[in-house]
């Protein structure tokens, strides 16, 4: 076996080379995985990319005797800057999780429920794919394309082609809980995703709930640390004193959901005192075209007004606005599920944030938000152009047609899905495929479990047996990112183009496959014409990857590129002078006429968050994702589980005293849709009118031997939405309103 532990013991002073069980991942490896690992002697250092979150930090991996030994950062990589976070460093524990799904399986117990044993029976890939293909065909034939539900990101390209080829209209993803509002607003205000934040060159950074340090996203965290090193001032508005707040010069425990008021007031100060970057604004924005309208619109949003909403003192807001203007380059990041952008007023807040960046004149300028200079890696549709896709016909289960900007974007809608399945169109969905998503990710998971029971056939592809897999008729085992091949272009931090390889450090274990394989194989069965090369042969995934490598100029073949691992072209950064805003003006848009045309706010108007504290539900309910976890996918990772195994109700000592709650005491948090019970954790770091709960816990699948049964589902108290609620709230960019709940708290 010759595994690492033994070597390590020998090093440990020689005398310690006694008999001892191998520990940690090595034990898991020896017990559960070694038989599935082809013997490969010797030690290799390989370059690959992390797959836990999307910036995909570069990895330098040590693989020894066929086992993943150690993961560390890749020098020169833009995303991780040569480092990994705690999640990334624990990556091999996903691959060596004994609970992993290993083979395709079908259920033998027709009764579905969280507590029902599915009665899994191992089946072949052919049987699994044939069954799924037959179910899809039957659903389309009898009920039309609208009866299919695919809960999956729109990637990879081959999987997406499969969905397009069979005319899937109901594809759903979690983006409305994430960056959907930002992506839509950016399209119309600056022209594209300005996800890159040039913090290291910023001198003034204002953070509205933006707490990505506390999520340990290195692509941004490194920049914030650099900003401090370079003498930037950082101001943080957050109801909780987070890890990010610790990096700030000033922290204001803003009233939840009122970031918009402060942002509007900052704009008011910049405009009324003419402190904006005139050179940029005159040359590159539509300010002049709408100046009177814009000035009139913001005139009423004075700092004094904002103080009443937000509890941030008016003189503070005024001073910060002035400093923001005088001490630039200044930046206000937005993006991702944070405490600011996932309220019902998230569309307006992100618009206000975008205007602040425009007024600072730092869009695509040093110290501001800039557009990534990425390598455009061609997709399968570029390489093997498909026949025309069939039109997407039928009803949308998520009601997205009522939100034209969301419809155009294509992202979302987790928050309206269960209402669609259970109430708007009950019985419409006959077949569902969940790819790497579980019910825990939705608002109100119990409602999702009920919805799953109404779907006649459910296929689930995942790495681990999630709660949702428990409801599946067929489960398919997915490879981990450490067993996968791909090309990853940097676009979270990319002043110049860079690509890092993702390569299988070890061959896929057991019978695990990728979702691209499933797309291709289902495609061959259901829409073969879409899966052929011009030569008439079926697409081969390896050849496709070679083609992508060649056409991106990365090398003659994927094998050739993976030996090098990283490509970059350090071309100088030339700031944009035309902006690709939707509508074609070529300018940044402060006033967005296209929003007005479709009944949305052309300028951000003040709207309160959806649910406000009431006598019955007096407290704000906030959720967060711990630094060592990612969404709801990492809690069963042995290393991460040990560090952060469960969640608690984080409340202030003042509130605890008022309610008679002691540290560790179980409390019940109840909202208008549900209740959870979990131990209290007392702190001085949070507003006394709020409670905070970590997302990702409360898995109930008994097949998850570590995470199963631990913690509470934060989502059980978060209302799912109806599409009409969203429209009525003016939530035109479709925020899922994860942070809008209010609750009651009682000690038990």
């Amino acid at each position, binding site marked *: 076996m010759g595994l690492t*532990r033994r*070597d*390590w013991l020998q*090093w*440990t*002073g020689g*005398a*310690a080379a*006694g008999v*001892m*069980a191998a*520990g*940690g*991942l090595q*034990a898991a490896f020896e017990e559960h995985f070694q038989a599935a690992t082809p013997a490969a002697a010797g030690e290799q250092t390989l370059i690959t990319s992390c797959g836990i979150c999307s910036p995909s930090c570069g990895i330098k991996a040590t693989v020894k005797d066929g086992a993943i030994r*150690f*993961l*560390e*950062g890749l020098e020169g990589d833009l995303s*991780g*800057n040569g*480092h*990994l*976070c*705690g*999640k*990334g*460093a*624990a990556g*091999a*524990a996903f691959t060596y999780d004994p609970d992993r799904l290993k083979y395709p399986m079908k259920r033998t117990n027709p009764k579905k429920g969280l507590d029902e044993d599915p009665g899994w029976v191992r089946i072949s890939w052919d049987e699994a794919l044939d069954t799924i293909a037959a179910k899809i065909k039957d659903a389309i034939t009898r009920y039309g394309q609208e009866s299919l539900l695919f809960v999956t990101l729109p990637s990879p390209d081959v999987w997406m082609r499969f969905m397009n080829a069979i005319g899937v209209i109901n594809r759903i993803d979690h983006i409305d809980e994430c960056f959907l509002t930002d992506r839509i607003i950016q399209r119309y205000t600056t022209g594209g995703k300005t996800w890159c934040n040039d913090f290291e060159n910023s001198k003034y950074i204002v953070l509205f709930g933006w707490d990505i340090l*506390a999520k*340990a996203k*290195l692509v941004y*965290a*490194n920049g914030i*640390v650099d900003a*401090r*090193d370079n003498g930037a001032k950082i101001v943080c508005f957050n109801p909780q*004193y987070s*890890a990010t707040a*610790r*990096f700030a010069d000033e*922290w204001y*425990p803003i009233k939840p959901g009122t970031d918009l008021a402060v942002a509007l007031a900052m704009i008011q100060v910049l405009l009324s005192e003419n402190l904006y970057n005139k050179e940029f604004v005159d040359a590159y924005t539509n300010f002049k075209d709408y100046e009177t309208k814009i000035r009139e619109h913001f005139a009423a949003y004075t700092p004094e007004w904002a103080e009443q909403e937000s509890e941030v003192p008016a003189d503070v807001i005024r001073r910060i606005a002035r400093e923001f203007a005088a001490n630039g380059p200044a930046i206000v990041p937005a993006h991702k599920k944070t405490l600011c952008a996932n309220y019902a007023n998230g569309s307006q807040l992100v618009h206000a944030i975008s205007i602040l960046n425009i007024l600072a004149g730092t869009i695509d300028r040093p110290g501001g938000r800039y557009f990534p200079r990425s390598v455009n890696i061609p997709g399968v549709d570029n390489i093997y152009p498909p026949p025309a896709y069939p039109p997407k016909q039928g009803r949308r289960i998520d009601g997205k047609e009522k939100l034209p900007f969301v419809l155009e974007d294509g992202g979302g809608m987790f928050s309206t899905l269960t209402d669609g399945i259970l109430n708007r169109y009950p019985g419409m969905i006959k077949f569902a495929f969940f790819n790497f998503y579980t019910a825990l990710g939705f608002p109100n998971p119990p409602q999702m479990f009920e919805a799953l029971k109404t779907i006649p056939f459910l296929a689930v592809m995942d790495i681990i047996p999630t709660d949702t897999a428990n409801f599946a008729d067929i489960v398919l085992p997915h490879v981990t990112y450490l067993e996968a091949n791909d090309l990853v272009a940097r676009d979270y931090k990319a002043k110049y183009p860079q690509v890092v390889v993702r390569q299988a450090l070890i061959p896929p274990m057991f019978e695990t496959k990728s979702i691209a394989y499933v797309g291709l194989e289902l495609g061959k069965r259901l829409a073969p014409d879409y899966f052929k090369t011009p030569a008439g042969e079926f697409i081969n995934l390896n050849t496709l990857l070679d083609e992508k490598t060649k056409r991106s100029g990365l090398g003659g073949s994927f094998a050739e590129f993976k030996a090098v691992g990283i490509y970059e072209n350090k071309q100088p950064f030339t700031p944009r002078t035309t902006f690709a805003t939707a509508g074609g003006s070529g300018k940044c848009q402060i006033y967005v006429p296209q929003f007005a045309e479709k009944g949305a706010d052309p300028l951000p108007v003040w709207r309160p968050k959806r649910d406000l504290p009431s006598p019955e539900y007096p407290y704000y309910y906030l959720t967060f994702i711990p*630094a*060592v976890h990612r969404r709801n996918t990492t809690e069963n990772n*042995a*290393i*991460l*589980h*040990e*560090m952060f195994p469960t969640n608690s109700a984080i409340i*202030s000592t*003042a509130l605890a005293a008022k309610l008679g709650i002691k540290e560790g005491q179980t409390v019940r948090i109840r909202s208008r849709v549900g209740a959870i019970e979990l131990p209290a954790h007392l702190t*001085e*770091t*949070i*507003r*006394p009118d709020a409670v905070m709960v970590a997302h990702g816990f409360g898995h109930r699948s008994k097949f998850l031997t570590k995470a199963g049964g631990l913690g509470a589902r934060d989502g059980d108290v978060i209302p799912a939405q109806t599409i009409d609620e969203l429209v009525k709230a003016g939530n035109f960019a479709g925020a899922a309103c994860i942070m809008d709940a209010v609750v009651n708290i009682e000690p038990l």
Partner: protein
Amino acid sequence: MAKYGWLLDAKRCIECRACESACKQWNGVETGINVRYRRVNVSESGKYPNVKTQALSMACNHCENPWCIKACPVKAIWRRDDGVVLIDRDRCVGCTMCAQLCPYGAPQFNIEVRKMEKCTMCVDRIDAGLQPACATLCPTGALKWGKWDDIQNKGAAQVPGFANPNQTKPNIRFVVSGWGK
């Protein structure tokens, strides 16, 4: 005299816990029994809203005067010439005396094998010319490792929440001033 030591700049810590993960992975430390050679401990001080927090990444400090060695009744703990303190698990009887005396909670009881274990400063990596896994992974430079000669005069010997260094003379210093460049 110790050859190596830690330099901790707590204000740079983002609590990502790469140091912890790297340690577990490199050293193959058993999971699920809460043996963690390195831990990031977050403490808070002050009253809302004038609150502060501090994250300290802590492991064995490979003390100049290691109480664990004094505590061990079977002489299972020893110190290399370069100052790295190690537990010889062939000799260890798992009595936990070392854990009871260590002011830093470094030695931990592995309930599976009923023996003590702790941070080895990744001696295998040091001997191969590498840095310990934790310091290698730390993305922000909050946790640094190096020659004690270069570290011993830097910063302060103690921060709030850290045991009196005069007791065991730990080989760790804390950056406390400026924005710790």
